[in-house]
């Protein structure tokens, strides 16, 4: 019998101010896999993954993480699920008023029982894992876009989550940084067995990280499969999307 999926969305509907954004999205993500959700701007990709961490509640439908129904959880029960998930925000979302070290220590201090020395070692290890060991004392404003993403990456993995959600992990980065961030995602899956969902428009990133791709269109998953399957599908929406990406690239 196959293992139950780590993340399961069942017929999720969500609207804002009378406008439907998700119209019945169903999605299963199995343990250790790397799924990519693609789709045009405004297709509801970010809304979709915000449901997984309980930042948004569906108007209808179910959201499951590790057999716990997230959309019905509140308070400490929801927090316990959230601690098993790392989230890389599109903007990085590093805390401006804190140094890189403080950004990472803030999470560790509150959620681990490590003493100061052990926390410092853990922070150094995470920073060297993302290739930025020398940036501990800098503030986010002093970092480049790619460096911010990698520090946010280090922060997202510092509590060793079993699931990672990436919201446009490579947006705004140059091709070298895109490759480097994408390779970090692959390394994380290979070395730590992390299950992940990434939202991206970036074909290079999808090529590097995707085990399977889900194409979101008009609030539903239009196609799922390997990147090649989805990319070469003849549906006009897919044709238009990938055609535009390829001509821009």
């Amino acid at each position, binding site marked *: 019998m196959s293992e139950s999926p780590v993340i399961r969305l069942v017929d999720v509907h969500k609207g804002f101010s009378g406008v439907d954004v998700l119209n019945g999205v169903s999605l299963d993500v199995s343990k250790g896999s790397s799924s990519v959700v693609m789709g045009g701007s405004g297709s509801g990709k970010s809304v979709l993954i915000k449901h997984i961490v309980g930042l948004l509640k569906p108007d209808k439908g179910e959201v499951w993480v590790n057999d716990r129904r997230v959309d019905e959880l509140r308070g400490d029960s929801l927090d316990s699920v*959230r601690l098993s998930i790392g*989230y890389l*925000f599109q*903007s990085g*979302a*590093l805390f*401006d008023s804190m140094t890189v070290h403080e950004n990472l220590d803030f999470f560790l201090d*509150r*959620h681990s029982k490590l003493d100061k020395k052990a926390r410092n070692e853990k922070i150094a290890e995470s920073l060297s894992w993302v290739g930025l060991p020398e940036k501990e004392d800098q503030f986010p404003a002093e970092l480049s876009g790619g460096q911010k993403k990698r520090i946010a990456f280090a922060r997202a993995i510092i*509590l060793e989550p079993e699931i990672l959600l990436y919201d446009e992990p490579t947006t705004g980065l140059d091709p070298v940084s895109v490759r480097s961030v994408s390779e970090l995602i692959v390394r994380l899956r290979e070395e730590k067995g992390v299950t992940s969902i990434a939202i991206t428009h970036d074909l290079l990133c999808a090529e590097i990280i995707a085990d399977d791709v889900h194409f979101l269109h008009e609030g539903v998953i239009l196609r799922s499969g390997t990147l090649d399957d989805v990319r070469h599908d003849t549906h006009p929406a897919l044709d238009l999307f990938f055609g535009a990406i390829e001509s821009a690239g």
Partner: protein
Amino acid sequence: MSTPKPSLTMEFLANFGDLTRFIGHFFVRFWRRPFEWKELGRQLDEVGSKSFLLTAVTGLSIGVVLAMQSRGTLVRFGAEAVLPSMLALSVFKEIGPVITSLVLAGRLGAGMGAEIGSMRVTEQIDALEVAALKPFHFLVITRVVACMIMFPILTLWTDCLAMFGGYLESLMASGMDYRIFLSTAFETIRISDILVDTGKTAVFGFIVGIVSCHLGFNVRGGTREVGQAAMRAVVGSSLLILLTDVIIVRLSLLIFGDVGS
């Protein structure tokens, strides 16, 4: 078709409802863990020690100007001797608390509204939320409590400097001895006046903290909305301070009576 007038009323009621709900959350969550002591310390420094210079200048100038403006009239009626007493009553009972709170509303309301607002639009608040770090405790409760603690302290500081400014003016204008100045100043004012009128600034601090955090916390959009939240935080808290002052003064008169009573 013109926009129907009641929508403004509805908008006001909706905003008022949101603020009331936010205040409700504050009182419910205030008693729950985690208690962010370290962040509270940082906010006390941010609200308090970084406002000392601003409130010092405010106090000194209030004292000097009030004494200069009143002297002419008092001399005309042969009542120059009551200047210190009049100064103490004006400063401790009304001008000190209200002006200090309005100045702090300008400095802190804009700062908190903009800081929390930009944290919202750059997803930093969501980042706290998904990391199970309770942003309401970390950002809102610490700031509101810091304001409630620091407003009375800063008000007393401003009051003292206003009295010092008044004394300097009296020294230069009439060579008044400081012992006479002090004994006359505190002749008519009661300790309950100082306690109530300084204590009411804790309520003003609560207003500035909660209104600014509410507006910042609920920003949707981008930098334009962050700017608007900062501006509305200053305007909203200033107006509420003035309205609340009327209520508190009325209540204190009912409870403690007037200075002459």
